[in-house]
């Protein structure tokens, strides 16, 4: 083994790893992600029935979904949904809420400033940074491209 190079070993080790069951994982992700969006649609239609306009409905749906994601995380259920559904639980906005609550409650022992509040965005922080940052770029680019008109 003394003449084994890093690259050779990495190739070799890769062969020893069984492949994940792509089909099963994808079906589960489809089912879980689809169901979460379906619940979102039910909330959305319900809010329309209360007579809110499109903007209010979009915001209201997002708020309720975030609440549900947070609640299920607090009850210790969302990680099980995630374990089963993989990306199906991560990609919907409920997954964003899950990452916030999971980080915050994990660090409660470290206090409410450096624990809960500071750790809240360890996983979700990048979403806000890249999301808000890029939206500003988009807004400025829009101004530049439409400046001549």
């Amino acid at each position, binding site marked *: 083994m003394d003449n084994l190079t890093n690259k050779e070993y990495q190739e070799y080790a890769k062969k020893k790893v069984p492949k994940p069951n792509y089909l099963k994982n994808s079906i589960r992700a489809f089912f879980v992600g689809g169901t979460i969006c379906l619940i979102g649609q039910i909330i959305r239609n319900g809010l329309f029935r209360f007579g809110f306009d499109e903007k209010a409905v979009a915001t209201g749906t997002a708020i309720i979904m975030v609440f549900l994601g947070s609640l299920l995380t607090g009850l210790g259920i969302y990680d099980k949904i995630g374990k089963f559904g993989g990306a199906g639980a991560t*990609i919907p906005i409920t997954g964003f809420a899950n990452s916030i609550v999971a980080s915050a*409650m994990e660090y409660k022992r470290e206090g409410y400033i450096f624990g809960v509040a500071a750790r809240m965005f360890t996983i979700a922080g990048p*979403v806000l940074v890249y999301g808000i940052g890029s*939206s500003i770029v*988009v807004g400025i680019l*829009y101004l530049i491209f439409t400046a001549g008109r």
Partner: protein
Amino acid sequence: MEYITAFIVGGLICVVGQILLDTTSLTPAHIIVTFLMIGVVLGAIGVYEPIAEFAEAGATIPILGFGYSLSKGAIEGAKAKGVIGAFAGGLESTAGATAAAVLFGYIISVVSYPKSKS
């Protein structure tokens, strides 16, 4: 009808994420940020709007939709108030969800504890 399209489109978006998770070494955090950025870009070039109109919650509940409303808000802000609007618009349009995440996140973290896993 819109229930079925929401289910299928939302499900398919998640399948793309799952395939990325299974075939690359990206973590869920990488996938979320990537999808968000795709949403911002697709929103900016006007591709996401028709998808969102067609699939409704199927397109807005996935994190792509968050990116879409960020860029849509920034463009609308820029239209209405220029540079200031470009800065504020994205956050304004997603302020509800972000604020809810902070408040609910805090309250729920305060009242609950992580459970032992098995």
